[in-house]
């Protein structure tokens, strides 16, 4: 029971105040008017009577009425809140809100395409433009101009698919083949434009390899070439390390180690810290803590000579990498053939944001073992 007011006619309101939390919706509306209504509300009347009281009673009684009014207002508000909440609950009780929402079909670019696009964007930011070239090439563009010695074991790294067509005549001709790398586009770019050349070259390349879990007879490659005066091995290292930090993470460790390609010298492989074990050694990196990501090197003077670029004046660097392999590493895809099969269940896993809502975003390698 609320505290007595000290005025018997006001104390008569107290049971009604106490009953407010039990009022129904209709009762609440009626009681609100009956107590606080502007015209005939019981407390309103009591308040109206204050000025007519003797001066000495006026102050205490007025304060008591006002306090009682505030109590009623708070009680009515609280009761309304409770009733509203009950109403909302009743109204929704017929619908199961856990039923699935209506969706639309979503599509997606191929996961390899997204990797290629990301790589291209990083190099665009470094002043590179995109160049492309034919997939059927002559021996000259694919091998000779790139300083492959005729009939040399270096050719064994490139099991070549030849096209059944007469050889192309002329100095830049020879037998027709499916390019074994995107490097012929280097030659085309240099023949097309004087330095400075900065091109990034995505494309499909072909090898006479059986189709198995880790090899495909056609796969993507992405190549870069920078040629200008004053370009050195330092620029190669700096630019490619910058790329790795953009593509993987700013704290990813990189290392360069010697390698061999006929068209670059010095040649190097760039490794990045294994994105699965972060350097401690695991099955994915064969315990080395490193993953081979790209091959690179300073453009061989013989390549410049074939491309009409003065090798004494200009220097340059080039690199190449395999987006299919990088895609497999990034997403933890165990078999390259999945990237060719067009299986909807596979493709739906790579919708940005996830097709079924539960997929984590595919931002970095950290979540790659999915």
């Amino acid at each position, binding site marked *: 029971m609320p505290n007595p007011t000290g005025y018997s006619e006001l104390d008569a309101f107290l049971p009604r105040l106490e009953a407010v939390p039990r009022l129904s919706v209709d009762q609440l509306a009626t009681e609100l008017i009956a107590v606080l209504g502007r015209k005939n509300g019981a407390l309103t009347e009591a308040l109206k009577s204050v000025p007519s009281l003797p001066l000495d009673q006026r102050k205490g009684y007025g304060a008591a009425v006002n306090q009682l009014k505030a109590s009623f207002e708070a009680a009515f508000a609280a009761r309304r809140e409770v009733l509203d909440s009950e109403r909302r609950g009743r109204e929704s009780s017929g619908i199961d809100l856990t039923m699935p929402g209506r969706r639309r079909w979503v599509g997606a670019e191929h996961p390899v395409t997204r990797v290629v696009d990301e790589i291209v964007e990083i190099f665009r930011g470094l002043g590179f433009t995109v160049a492309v070239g034919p997939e059927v090439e002559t021996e000259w563009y694919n091998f000779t101009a790139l300083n492959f010695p005729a009939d040399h074991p270096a050719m064994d790294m490139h099991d070549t698919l030849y096209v059944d067509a007469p050889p192309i005549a002329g100095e830049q001709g020879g037998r027709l083949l499916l390019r074994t790398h995107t490097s012929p586009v280097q030659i085309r770019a240099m023949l097309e434009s004087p330095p400075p050349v900065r091109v990034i070259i995505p494309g499909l390349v072909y090898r006479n390899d059986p189709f198995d879990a880790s090899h495909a007879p056609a796969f993507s490659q992405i190549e870069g070439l*920078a040629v200008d005066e004053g370009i050195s091995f330092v620029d190669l290292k700096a630019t490619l390390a910058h790329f790795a930090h953009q593509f993987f993470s700013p704290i990813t460790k990189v290392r360069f180690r010697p390698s061999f390609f006929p068209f670059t010298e010095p040649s190097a492989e760039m490794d990045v810290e294994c994105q699965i074990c972060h350097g401690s050694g695991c099955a994915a990196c064969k315990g080395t803590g490193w993953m081979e990501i790209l091959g690179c090197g300073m453009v061989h003077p013989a390549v410049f000579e074939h491309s009409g670029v003065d090798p004494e004046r200009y220097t340059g660097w080039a690199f190449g990498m395999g987006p299919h392999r990088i895609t497999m590493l990034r997403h933890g895809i165990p078999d390259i053939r999945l990237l060719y099969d067009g299986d909807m269940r596979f493709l739906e896993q790579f919708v940005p944001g996830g097709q079924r809502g539960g997929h984590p975003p595919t931002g970095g390698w950290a979540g790659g073992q999915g």
Partner: protein
Amino acid sequence: MNVSLRWLEDFLRRRLDVKDVTERLAMLGAPVDAVEPLHTGLGDVLIGLVEEVRPHPNADRLRVCLVNDGSAERRNVVCGAANVTAGRKYPFAPVGATLPDGLRIEKRKLRGEASEGMLCSARELGLGQDGDGIWELGTEATPGTRLLEALPLDDHRLVVDVGPNRPDLLGHKGIARELSASYGTPFRLPVIPGSPTIEVPPVRRVGNSTDVGGVRAAIEDLEGCPRFLAAVVKGVKVAPSPDWLARRLEAAGVRSINNIVDATNYVMLELNQPMHAYDIARLRGPGVVARRAREGETVITLDGVERKLTPGMTVIADDGGAIGVAGVMGGSATEVSAETVDLFLECAYFTPAGIRRTRRALGLSTEASYRFERGIDRWGGVEALRRCIEIIGATAGGELAGAPVDVGPGPSNPSRIFLRPARVTQVLGVELPWQALEGYLVAIGATVVSKPEDGRIAVEAPSWRPDLLREVDLIEEVARMHGYEKFPSKLRPFRPGLLPDAPVERATAEVRRGLARQGFFEVSPLPTGPADGSDSVRLLNPLSNADGYLRRRLLPGLVRLVEGNWAKHVADVRLFEIGTVFTAQAGGERPREERHLAAVLTGHREPPHWTGSGQDRFDVWDLKGLFEAAVALAIPQGAVQVEGSEWIARDSSGRTVGRAGPVAADAPPWAAPLFGFELLLDPAPRLPARFVTLPSTPSSERVLALLLGEGTTARQVEELLERIGGELLESILVESDYRGPELPPGRRSVAFRLTFRAADRTLRDPEIDAIEARMLTALATELDIQRRDAGGPRGGS
């Protein structure tokens, strides 16, 4: 290249940490693909001293031995080997030990006698083929010592990835040289246990033909074989190799055969010089010649296969014909056998291109051909031959018959390469003092002939480095020896390239995004397949006939992917591809390459939902809408038209560049219809969309339900309405197409919702009425079309 860590240790005379060596080799350009610990399964095996041997009471073939295994007690061991002798040491596997083959030794009784362990043969320990008797050890180690500690068995095999430019790394010496430079410690050839038994006199240099130990050695094919060293060793005893030799070869992945063959293989693995030993007794006539094969000549090689030879090949021949394919494989007729007494040793340099031609023609690749093809050390033969003779002397005895000979025209002056320090700076980006350059060059075995007085250093490359031919080759060596890691990695200002972006790539990216937005998944199947028309481009050497041609269209490949999905009971398939297609050209032209876009769709139009929506399957109108959207993306100013019973796309010049329609496929009975389209992707630059002022005046709509006769198309009606409606006709929407018995025969009712708007004023009904009247008149006179009802609902917005 399989490398034994122990072997390297013997070169460098120090212990090596396998992880550190792996790391250093990687940074030197010879990455280690795999590290295989050898004989780790022998940890339980001890040195056992047999103190007493007595016959088994119940079995003639068995003996009971008392074995001292270092513990206080003596072990009773039943042994079946005939060679067990008291006072000798053998590998002993005590009770509880596990052998490499997984056998666990337990205490048991053999014919009534208790046996507490096992004396082992080499084969039982996984250490070779010798299983005839138990393995007698000549070790000083006390009984009970672990076998791995007593013998150098705990080796590691490093599988080193050697590039085609570095033949010198195909021998342990070459790898040791690199590590020597890396560690800054000297290296030298390991000592041969037991040598020298034979004093090897200096090699005698002769012309192109000479006599050695009664055998004529000659070169007749100087192009294929410019150098041929030979020696004759008489009175050898062919036998199994001693342990050290067999272990060395096995660590490097080569099976031990006998002391002679193993000696030649040892030299190959150590010095990268393939050698061959001939049994003199089996030669026909006293001569061994390197010459071209004769037409129709054959030889049976060591693998027992008869090889047909051609005059392009270099062979080793005796007076009766070819006895080996030079540098590839010896012949079985003159092979060293257990009866061999006198040896002719061949140590030649064969020309790489010739070996490559021959091994490809024969389809026969061997350890020897692999090395010759990459180029061995042309002047390394003397050391190799001496080494081989020493090993034979130490392991098989015998006498050298005369000095070894060096047949051939002799050495020429090594060519000089000039290295400019300024060029080093230009290429590598850092300035290195010339003393450093000299130091690096010396470390790889080069000779620095002159100081850089004229701004360049004259260098003679070592003979084992055929890859060093020009200045840039030396710059790479400088960078390698300096260490790639030591070069700074500082991004510097650059000039952007002058070439513009390839337009086709920009167009492709836009189309890709557009189709993905339409709910399609991008795919990229293999671009090869079966023939697809007479102008398909054929491959000369495909992996299979099913992939014998380059694709002429994308659609067949996509259909195969749909069938693959159906095979996995996936019914809702929406795929697209952007890729290159190839068409053969007549007249010696290279095949034409074009970039195409194709898509296929089948199954539900939208995901089925529990409310009942999404039950419809794709139909031809979905196809048409998607085709129109794709054409808008792929072909600027392109248009979709009807041709016969399909839709085609035309470009701005009117050329047909795409088609859409139902697609035939090997479909399961439950599959929904399959539709597809394919079109050319126009690389022309896309123009940005131009803003059109948003309308500020109200529009008015009219619906015309029109009765179209047979052969009259909606498109004809639309063209007429557009013509008459002029600028005031903002849009036409086809609302329905109805056929029914209440219509006049041969007629269908098509409702067109027309939206009129004037940009500058509110259109009033009389003005629209007038246009509508003109439209109806024209429809009636030009297309014989009447209105179905008196007038449609009128409205405005």
